[in-house]
């Protein structure tokens, strides 16, 4: 059902430009990886704190507030560098089971990060039990690691 949409994206003029340039594609790949590094760093600062390691002398909410701009900025960078890769290789993505797996887990990860995880990191001290904090951190790390693995395998095994 979505195939015509993916074919349409692939046939856009900009997609041809991206595919035919010797350095645009690799350059965008590199920036995607750099954005991932910032995103993962900001994510781990908070998840480690929730696990009871990392910056334990700071309240969770303070670490989360400090990490927030880097988490959002990293994600915007990932989206801006991910979308060109998606449109320029539309049909490859459409036929890759890893692409669909990545997108499903990504949707889950985003919902989880901006609802439950956000609530847990902003809650007043003592309102969230240590066990729940750890569960949230482990779910967060698992979801985002799965997204990363799926993303890498689109390129390697599709």
């Amino acid at each position, binding site marked *: 059902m979505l195939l015509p949409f993916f074919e349409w994206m692939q046939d856009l003029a900009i997609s041809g430009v991206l595919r035919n340039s010797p350095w645009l594609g690799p350059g965008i790949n*590199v920036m995607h990886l750099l954005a991932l590094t910032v995103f*993962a760093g900001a*994510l*781990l*600062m908070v998840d480690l704190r929730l696990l009871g390691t990392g910056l334990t002398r700071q309240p969770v909410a303070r670490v989360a507030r*400090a990490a927030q701009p880097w988490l959002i900025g990293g994600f915007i960078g990932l989206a801006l560098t991910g979308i060109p890769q998606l449109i320029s290789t539309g049909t490859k993505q459409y036929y890759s089971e890893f692409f669909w797996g990545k997108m499903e887990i990504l949707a889950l990860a985003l919902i989880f990060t901006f609802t439950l995880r956000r609530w847990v990191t902003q809650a007043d001290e003592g309102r969230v039990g240590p066990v729940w904090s750890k569960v949230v951190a482990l779910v967060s790390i698992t979801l985002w690691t799965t997204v*990363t693995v799926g993303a*890498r395998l689109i390129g*390697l095994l599709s």
Partner: protein
Amino acid sequence: MTFIRSWFEWVNEFPSSVALRESLYGYPALLTAHVVTMCLFAGLIVMMDLRLVGIAYTETPVSQVQKRLFPWQMLGMALSSITGLLLFYGQPMRFYFKVFFWVKMVLMGLAGVNALAFHYSTYRSVASWDSDVKGPLGARVAGALSIALWTGVIVFGRLVAYDYMTYK
């Protein structure tokens, strides 16, 4: 370079190196693990560097950020080194001819020198500027240099996958 080349060629013929090179899933699995473990290592290094530069986690003393992240950075470094060495072990002669591979190695060495130099100079006096939003010039330069060098390591590491500047 002939000594290095003969050493790479020697490793290249190990039965386990050949097996890794010829295995269907060895390379994808190792490369994926390298990316994930790099996130742990470089992600936390960059977060600490941003504190040194004075633009993130400024409410936390520098020494706290350093001490509390250090074990995780070292775990990340150990895991990304193991996966990186195995990637190299499987295809030493693929990397030997790639300029970007050598550039990455040099930048990694420089990043290490920068970290050690900072640790044994400016960082010795951390007690007197621990809670300052912006530390002394030496701390800010070390943080900025670290971000620049590790960015270079990631950029050239990723570019090794392409055929640019490969001289056979």
